[in-house]
């Protein structure tokens, strides 16, 4: 009985430790949060989250349908390093950037798989993704994912050894 109780307690502790220390609760807490400021990345629904590992797997799987990957942050930082095959479409926080985004996707079928990313600064501070996501949503796109880069593109993509391309 004592052994069983000990085992049970140990398992509960293990689960608690894992849940509290893993990065996912942090992600969950940041998504779709009540009271997220308008336009912030925090307004993006959790279901639209795409983790870097998942995108990388998708990109290296030959048989997988490749999404259209759009960077909606700084052009200079895109030039420094971006996901191969991704396109720069202007800053989501700027009207001109949103117009550029609209022009790029306007002729596409609304079921087109699109991945937005930025990585300019920590997720909860990103001014670009929220408006860009809302724009695509308002245009009727139904298959839009947003790459979750918790800290920035360098830390959460480039430094993980995922492919990076330079140039504008």
């Amino acid at each position, binding site marked *: 009985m004592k052994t069983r*109780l*000990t*085992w049970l*307690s*140990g*398992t*509960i*502790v*293990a689960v608690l*430790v*894992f849940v509290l*220390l*893993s990065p996912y609760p942090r992600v969950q807490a940041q998504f779709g949060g009540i009271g997220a400021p308008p336009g912030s990345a925090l307004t993006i629904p959790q279901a639209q989250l795409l983790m870097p590992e998942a995108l990388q797997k998708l990109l290296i799987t030959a048989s997988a349908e490749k999404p259209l990957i759009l960077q909606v942050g*700084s*052009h*200079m*930082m895109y*030039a*420094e*390093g971006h996901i191969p095959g991704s396109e720069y479409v202007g*800053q989501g*926080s700027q009207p001109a950037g949103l117009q550029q985004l609209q022009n790029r996707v306007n002729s596409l079928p609304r079921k087109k798989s699109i991945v937005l990313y930025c*990585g*300019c*600064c*920590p997720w909860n*501070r990103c*001014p*670009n993704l929220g408006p860009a996501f809302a724009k695509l949503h308002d245009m009727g796109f139904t298959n839009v994912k947003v790459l979750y880069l918790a*800290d*920035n*593109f*360098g*830390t959460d*993509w*480039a*430094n*993980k050894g995922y492919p990076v391309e*330079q140039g504008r």
Partner: protein
Amino acid sequence: MIMGIPQAALRSSTLVRLLLFLWLGVHAASASFAATSLLHKAAPEFVRTDLNHRRLDLRAYRGKVVLLNFWATWCAPCQLEMPRFVAWQNQYGPHGLQIIGVSMDDDSAAASSLVKKLKLNYPVVMGNEKLGQLYGGVMGLPITFLIDSQGKVQAQYQGETDLNSIEEQFKPLLRP
């Protein structure tokens, strides 16, 4: 007892230790990336024109302790740091501290406007991708390099950093 759980349970749980070990391993690895590239190496030299149209040559600051701060107008955490940098420039400038800003904005007008608004008292240059790559790839802001009076990078701070800890690190490098 910890949170009502018998010590025996904690001791016996190899799973706890395994999970902790894995978690620490993953997080230690991810935290180490940004800090390695330029540390204890000579800070890459560059010459650019600042927003006041003056020539800025990093080499000319040898003998001073430099905080080289990459920022942008759209970066909220960057703007939280800047008033403190202004205060440091006032307080520690006479002891050999020089703050230099590098705006990674695509548009210099936006940078100039914020520099005026925040009354920055240190030079700011416009960056570009080459300068960013020179500093190991500025792929996320803010990022600040602490460069000692010999021109070597002593520390690199990425993301929202405790400004008190930066201050504690550069103070011993300054003149009394």
